Each structure stands twice: as C-alpha cells, then as structure tokens.
C-alpha cells in the first residue's frame, strides 16, 4: 500500500518522509521547513536543467525534420544522446574575456539569464499537490521575473565591449519592453476569469479550459511570449546575418552554454505557463486522486505547445525591427485591450451557471474580435501598402538559375 502511495504522489511522499526523519532527529520545525525548501529548490532547478538536455535534442531534431534534414543521428538511437557529448565538449572549453569588458556585468549576465527562467518554475503547479510556492500574485511574479532575464541580456550587451553585442542588446530591450505590454494585458483575461492571480487557483478554476473561452488572449500570450524568448520569427536580437550573434557574441565555453540553456529552457517554460493558464495545467481525468497523472498531463500539454513553438520557429522568416514594432503596437496592443473589455463585459453579463451558453458566447465573441482585427489589417494594408525595399529581381539559388549562370559563364 505504501509503495502504491509512493507511486501516485512521489514528491509529497518523499517530502513527508524527510520531514518526519528530520523532526525525529530533533531539529526545530522552522529549520526543517527551511531545509525542505532548499532541497526542493535545488531538486527542481537541477531537474529543469537536466530536462534541457532532452529539449535541445528535441528542438534540433524537429527543426531538422521540418527543414528536410536528418538532424542529430550518430549518438544513441535517433541521436538522442547527442547533447551529452556536446555538453562535455562545452565544459572543457576555454573562458575568453574580451579586452575592455566590464567584468562584473559580463560574468553576471549568463547567471541572471538562467536564473530568470528557473525562477518561473517555482510558481508553476506541477500537480495538484506539488507546487514550489503558491504565490497569490503568481502571474505578476512570472512577468517580474522575466524582467531579470532582460537585465541579463542588457548586461551581456553592455559588458562585452562589442558593438554587435551592444546592438543586439538594444534590439533585445526594445523587443522585450514593447512586447511586455500586450502580454501583461492578455494575462489579465485568465486572471479575471479565475478571480485570482495565483497560478494554482487559475489551474483549479479551469473546469473549462480557458483556451475555449478566450482563444484571442491565448494567441496574444503565445505570440508575445515567443517574442520575449527572442526566438524566430522574433530572433532579430541574435540575427546571425546582420549582427553576427547579438548580445552573446563575446561569450565562450560554459558562459555561452548558460545563454543556450536559458534560451531552450525558456521556450519550454513558456509552454508550461501557457498550459497552466489556458489548457488547465495538471487537470485531467483522475488527476485529483493520483497526482502523478496530473504531472503527466501537464507534460503532454506543454510538450504539444513546445512542438508548436518549434514549428513556428522552423517555418516563419524573421521580422524586421519596424515590422516587429508594428505588430506589437498597431495590432497586438489594441487587440489585447479590446479583448480585456469584451471579457469584462461578458463575464458580468453571463452567470457562471450557464456553462454551455457561456462558452459559446465567449468563443463567438472572441472569434469575432479576431476576425474584425484581420479585416482591419487588410483594410489598412490596401490604404497604405507596405513599401517594397528591393525592386530588382535578385538572383536566388534555384536550380534553373544555377544552370543559367553556368551556361553563360563557361
């Protein structure tokens, strides 16, 4: 019976066992609580970092398949262990500090970048019984912690004493500061629906997944969080063809590895936050009785969203900086504001008891708002068309072009 109980809820079981053990030795309750918090934080952070090893393989393989390549395929089945030799290689590399670098910001930046992502994990409810800290302002906390990552990027861009790094830092700050606006506004919608800012309460309130109630807010949140992560199509912070690698250009060895880890971990963290806010988090059949099922549901949902993010990365070209600003200030911000107003009105008009009618009304109104936005975009596009930057047909590496060139050349 004890073993079954362990299987159904391992984390709580271990925590209770350890607490009993420490209290039995005679350590005061306050210090036992402290020790448990330290162990929990260490275990969660380590597990998240270990999970990145798998995530990096997943992303490389998925992107490769999307681009019709094989991807990693040498180490282990389907190259699944490819990241481990890469990791060992990066451990052995030399740390190079550029001349004129500002030592403290330069070295603090990678740490802040990873810490900013890892700190989000402390408020994500992994199962009904497992949550690092049930903060009553969890949603605000996620945004606040995200700004630490921004700070890390600024410090990297400034501290490297490199013009490309500084340019990348500029772009990153412009991107992050602007996309925070629609993100915060769109996060108001689940907060209003659940009547709480705590992540656990929001997950618990979702008898109906919020993505059915507010698909528009979910879409805005997904777009803005991809932008916050700075990955394609918003990867102009590290556009290789324009500013080489952006803010992390001067980093080598494990310090670069930290940025790399932060990037990949951030995308999965977004997926988890999205699942908790809009896909019900750990909720699913039987998750309340057997907490580990809730963890599995959360991982499946987050995995699907992560795949969607990779898919977007693999299929869309990069935004120019003016396009990026246009999307944010002319489309996403007004859209999110109108969604908030619409949600507030509907939430008061339709009582919670009329579940089916409520879902239907919310869904229809949200889709209507999205359609109106799309129509307005089309109207403004015809009224003021985008300036075409290059008019002449540039040579492209197509088979017929190559053939034509070789014929004329020889």
């Amino acid at each position, binding site marked *: 019976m004890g073993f079954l109980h362990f299987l159904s809820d391992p984390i709580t079981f271990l925590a209770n066992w350890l607490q009993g053990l420490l209290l039995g030795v005679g350590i005061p309750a306050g210090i036992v609580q402290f020790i448990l918090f330290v162990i929990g934080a260490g275990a969660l952070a380590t597990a998240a970092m270990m999970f990145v090893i798998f995530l990096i393989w997943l992303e490389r393989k998925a992107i490769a398949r999307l681009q019709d390549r094989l991807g990693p395929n040498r180490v282990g089945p389907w190259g699944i262990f490819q990241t481990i030799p890469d990791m060992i290689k990066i451990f052995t590399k030399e740390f190079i500090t550029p001349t004129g670098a*500002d030592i403290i*910001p330069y070295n603090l930046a990678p740490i802040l970048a990873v810490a900013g992502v890892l700190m989000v994990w402390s408020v994500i409810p992994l199962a009904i019984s497992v949550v690092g800290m049930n*903060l*009553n*302002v969890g949603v*605000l*906390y996620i*945004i*606040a*912690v*995200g*700004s*630490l990552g*921004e*700070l890390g990027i*600024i*410090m990297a861009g*400034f501290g490297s004493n490199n013009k490309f790094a*500084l340019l990348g*830092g*500029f772009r990153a*700050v*412009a991107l*992050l*500061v602007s996309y*925070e606006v629609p993100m915060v506004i769109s996060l108001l919608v689940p907060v209003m629906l659940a009547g709480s*800012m705590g992540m656990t309460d929001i997950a618990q309130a979702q008898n109906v997944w919020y993505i059915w109630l507010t698909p528009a807010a979910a879409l805005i949140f997904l777009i803005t969080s991809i932008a916050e992560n700075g990955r394609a199509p918003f990867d102009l912070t590290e556009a290789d063809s324009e500013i080489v690698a952006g803010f992390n250009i001067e980093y080598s060895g494990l310090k670069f590895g930290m940025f790399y880890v932060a990037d990949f971990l951030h995308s999965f963290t977004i997926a988890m936050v999205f699942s908790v806010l809009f896909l019900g988090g750990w909720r699913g059949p039987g998750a309340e009785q057997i907490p580990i099922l809730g963890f599995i549901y959360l991982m499946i949902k987050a995995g699907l969203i992560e795949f969607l993010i990779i898919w977007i990365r693999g299929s869309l070209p990069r935004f120019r900086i003016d396009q990026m600003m246009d999307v944010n200030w002319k489309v996403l911000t007004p859209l999110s504001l109108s969604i908030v107003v619409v949600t507030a009105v509907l939430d008061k008009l339709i009582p919670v008891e009329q579940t089916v009618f409520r879902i239907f009304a919310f869904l229809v109104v949200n889709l209507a708002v999205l359609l109106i936005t799309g129509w307005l975009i089309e109207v403004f596009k015809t009224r003021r068309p985008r300036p075409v930057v290059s008019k002449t047909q540039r040579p492209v590496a197509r088979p017929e072009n190559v053939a034509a060139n070789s014929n004329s050349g020889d």
Partner: protein
Amino acid sequence: MTVLQIIFLLAAAITLGSAVMVVSSRRMMHVALWLVLTLFGVAILFALLEIRFFVVVQVLIYIGAIAILIIFAVMLTRHSLEDVGPHFNRGWWIAILACFATFSGLVAVLSSWSKFQTIIRTIPAGGEDILSLGKAFIDPAGYVIPFEVASVLLLAALIGAIFVASERKEGKR
C-alpha cells in the same frame, strides 16, 4: 538577534551601499546597474514584511520597466558612457548639511506621530488580500480620486511624449 533581523540589516546595508554607489560611480552604465541593486534591496525589505504583492510590483515596475528604460536612455544618449571631471564642487558641505537637516527633521516629525510605534500585523498564510486593495482603489469612499488623478497625469505624460516625438518628425519633412 533573530535571523530576520540579520537579513534586514544585510538588505539595508545593500540598499544604502548601492545607493551611495549610484551617486559616486563614474560610468553612467554602472550607475544604472547600481540603481537596480538599490531597488532590489527595497524589494527585499518588502519581502521581509511579507507583502508579496509589493515585492513583485517593485521588481516588475521599478526594475523591469523604469530601470531598464533608464539603462536604455543611458545607452542611447551618452556618447562615451563615461563621466570625467571632479565629482565635488565647492558647495558639497551645504548639500550634506541640507540632507542631514532634512533627515533629522523627518525623524523628529515621524517619531512624534502616534502611529510610529504601530506593531506590524502578521499576514495570514494565504498571503495578503489583493482584492480589498483593488476595491479600495475604485471605491468612492476609498482612493478613487487620487487613483483617477494619477491616471490622468500618466495619460497627459503619454500624450506629451507622443507630441514631442511626432513634432520632430514633422520638422524633418
């Protein structure tokens, strides 16, 4: 001395020390980064009072928005990002005197205030009540007028910023 008091002293030392560095550093960028540390120290003080909402808002607004915008402005405007020349002018002792007078005046006024000795209330385990804070902001009997005045002020600042930015563009054409 309890653990909390030690943490309080450390946080206060960090806050004050980095505040001194804000006014004494030479590189503008360092000034901005020290300012971030100062604001963090204030966030720790809020955390010691167990007001989670204020901790998060302090980090979100002061570090996430204001400090980052300051850094952005510093990066864009200063050519060399470095300040040369003397830090003090002849009037430095007047400034110290004025600061000391203001500080002692504030302490004297506050210590004679009846609520100065209020014992801190413990906050329930679920965290503080944000709902009543929000309701107080829009309650006619509460703080609705200051709240609205502040929002009008912010709106005016926003319009002003747009006006300044767009006027320059018109002049170019």
